[in-house]
């Protein structure tokens, strides 16, 4: 305690000394500046000040605007899994007349359809539906930096034929640097559960974990730079499970086509605070 006080005193003394020195040095400069300012016509000074103000305000606004973008939720998954339907369900509450393979991302900032009737101010969500076609996947990286959450849509009906492709995509997603570092939560949505033959979410989770475990063996354990994945997943020596991920990974069920998207909405609201 004693030592600390003494140290503090010393520091104060030192700083006051330094300050005085500074002041002495600054005085001539200050007077010079004063003279110079008086020489310049006042209109020019005002103009300069105005420009300074405008730019700083603009910069501030830009900052604010950027911060707002953390309300982005990404919809990803293989093509044909039902992302675009989900997108329009969340936006309009209807799938309209069906969808075809997307060629461009669907983007929109809106208040969720189910919350429109609610009172009170709700923060709009910026929802992006990234096409699932593998040629268009690089687009995902454009949106990742702003993402507050990712919904990974899996087709529960045609699950097994697509299992490997889906888990590869999920693996890539889970090992992306921006996802791991920012701990972006991921919701694995088993879509199309309104159909009778759809697989249960427990089954899907287990299968995905198994596949990712194999992927981990083939990708990270042996080859270091084969792929652009930046992080290794899970705990080595243990079978992989989603609980080992640093970011939260949840599994949910839903059916986009009939509007059963409550769990997605909950996920979105959990991560985009209203």
């Amino acid at each position: 305690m004693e030592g600390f006080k003494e140290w503090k005193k010393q520091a104060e003394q030192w700083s006051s000394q330094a300050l005085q020195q500074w002041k002495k040095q600054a005085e001539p400069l200050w007077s010079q500046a004063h003279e110079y300012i008086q020489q310049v016509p006042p209109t020019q000074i005002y103009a300069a000040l105005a420009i300074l103000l405008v730019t700083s305000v603009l910069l501030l606004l830009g900052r604010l605007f950027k911060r707002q973008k953390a309300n982005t939720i990404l919809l990803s998954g293989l093509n044909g899994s039902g992302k675009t339907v989900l997108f329009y369900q969340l936006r309009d509450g209807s799938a309209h007349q069906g969808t075809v393979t997307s060629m461009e991302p669907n983007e929109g900032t809106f208040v969720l359809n189910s919350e429109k009737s609610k009172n009170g101010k709700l923060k709009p969500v910026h929802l992006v539906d990234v096409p699932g076609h593998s040629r268009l996947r690089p687009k995902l990286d454009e949106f990742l930096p702003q993402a507050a959450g990712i919904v990974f849509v899996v087709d529960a009906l045609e699950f097994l034929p697509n299992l490997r492709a889906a888990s590869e995509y999920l693996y890539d997603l889970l090992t992306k640097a921006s996802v791991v570092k920012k701990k972006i939560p991921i919701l694995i949505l088993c879509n199309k559960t309104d159909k009778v033959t759809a697989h249960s979410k427990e089954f899907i989770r287990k299968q995905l974990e198994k596949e990712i475990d194999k992927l981990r063996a083939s990708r990270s354990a042996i080859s270091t730079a084969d792929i652009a994945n930046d992080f290794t997943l899970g705990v080595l020596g243990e079978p992989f499970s989603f609980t080992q991920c640093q970011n939260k990974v949840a599994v949910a069920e839903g059916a986009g086509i009939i509007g059963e998207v409550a769990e997605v909405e909950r996920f979105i609201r959990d991560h985009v605070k209203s």
Partner: protein
Amino acid sequence: MLEQLLIFTRGGLILWTCKELGNALKGSPIDTLIRSCLLEERSGAASYDYTAPGAAYTLKWTFHNELGLVFVAVYQKILHLLYVDDLLAMVKQSFAEIYDPKRTVYDDFDETFRQLRKEAEARAEELKKSKQVGKPVSNSRKQGQVQKAGLGGDKKSNEGGLASDGGDGNAVKGRKLENGISNGNHVVSKESNVVGTANGKENTSSNLGAFDVNKLKSRSKVGKKTEKTASLDRKGSKAEPIKKITKKNRVWDDSPQESRESKLDFTDTVGENEDNNIEVVAADHGESMMDRDEDYSSESEAEEEEEVGKQSKPDSKKKGWFSSMFQSIAGKANLERSDLEPALKALKDRLMTKNVAEEIAEKLCESVAASLEGKKLGSFTRISSTVQGAMEEALVRILTPRRSIDILRDVHAAKEQGKPYVVVFVGVNGVGKSTNLAKVAYWLQQHQVSVMMAACDTFRSGAVEQLRTHARRLQIPIFEKGYEKDPAVVAKEAIQEAKPNGSDVVLVDTAGRMQDNEPLMRALSKLIYINNPDLVLFVGEALVGNDAVDQLSKFNQKLGDLSPSPNPRLIDGILLTKFDTIDDKVGAALSMVYISGAPVMFVGCGQSYTDLKKLNVKSIVKTLLK
């Protein structure tokens, strides 16, 4: 009969379908169209044929780029519907008027569509009738048109083939027709002749989208001539800067240098009795380059951009400094074909100097133009940079593999099933099949995968010995049966041998063959049919230019045609060899991937076992566009 007409956004939401037609389409032609045609940068083509069990459709489409809409018409393949193009254009025009991004239901369009369709059908009907009546007249008419084209060749003379495309759209069509992409070729020509006679007036005929093929041909020839001269001019001015940059940016072989020198030389160890003396090099080669991180130097990126800017300056300077300045600030209203043309031509030339096959450069530019036409140009952007951006996106899309190229993963999957993973290397003579087979073997071995080689080149003398030498160096078992044996049988026995051997992967080396040599291609097709390999790897050299297209497409075609099975195996992947020898002429990679749709799985880039890489899409695209 028209089966279906859809209007959807590029995002994938269907805005309107014709409920009246209401026929449920068999299979999913639209999704297939998008996946295998529009997303593969083939949207410059005229039509797409979809076949599925119980269905055979032809699809035609048109884009409205400003609004981001796609219009697709589906009809039975056996019917040659003449009015589809016409109808699509009309639908596009009238739908664009009522389109509102916020609206998603367009029930009122039903009525409009009914009218449009009636109109189009009536016109088609008229065509048929007049075809029977007025042929001689049509000829004279046609001649008149040809003469006119020869004299004027002006864009305005046949405006409006597609409502919004303007004259240049027609020119494009003409070129397309000339290329003979679809069977629509002669159909359209008929249509145009007849229309001309039926409605005496020039105006109506052009409104119908009737164009005379001869006229277009002659015109496009003229166009090509000017194109050529223009490109020559540009080449003269451009050759210098391009060379300058390329020298700096060579990135292909930066890392291997240190390790290579010491390991290149093996010859001294091979003494007289080679059986004992051959050095075993399995373990001491260091990592294969497949596993090495490549730190691509992005040092000169800024510089490069500057250069690009310089290059495109001459284009904009022509128009006069002030107007171009004004345009760049205000942003141009809508991009038209004529605006894009110079930039596209420059881009095409640039691609061709990078050894991209001409046909492919042409198609790519076509597709990029189709995606840009009608778009708004943002303020402070130049057309050339917009085109460049679009092209870059397209290139990345093409080169990004469609399927997973993680061979190790597949090997493990096959291992679990208790089957050996079979890779067949095919290709023309002297591209380096055996050498790169050894490299792949080395790479697999590094990953604790037990490999076996099968010497199925029973044709060229010395081939088996060559492979045997590689096998001994790498200490890999080799299956050989000498020469003059049926390679298909040798491969079969090798695969059977692999199981008791405990080998996970069998690498099958085949004899090099020219794509036109039918007996040899038949033998290859048989080999693939009998052994059903997991991967058919086409080995192609990066030095090849226009021939790449021929090689790959013929290989694919022959493998398909000559195979006894109803759904034959085609080429699954490409191994690009001699990549270290081509400097910046990386176009072969693009040509091959575009023509076959198969991804580049490996890149051979040197002489030693470690010189095997993965394709770096970003750097390829950068090199192609610089």
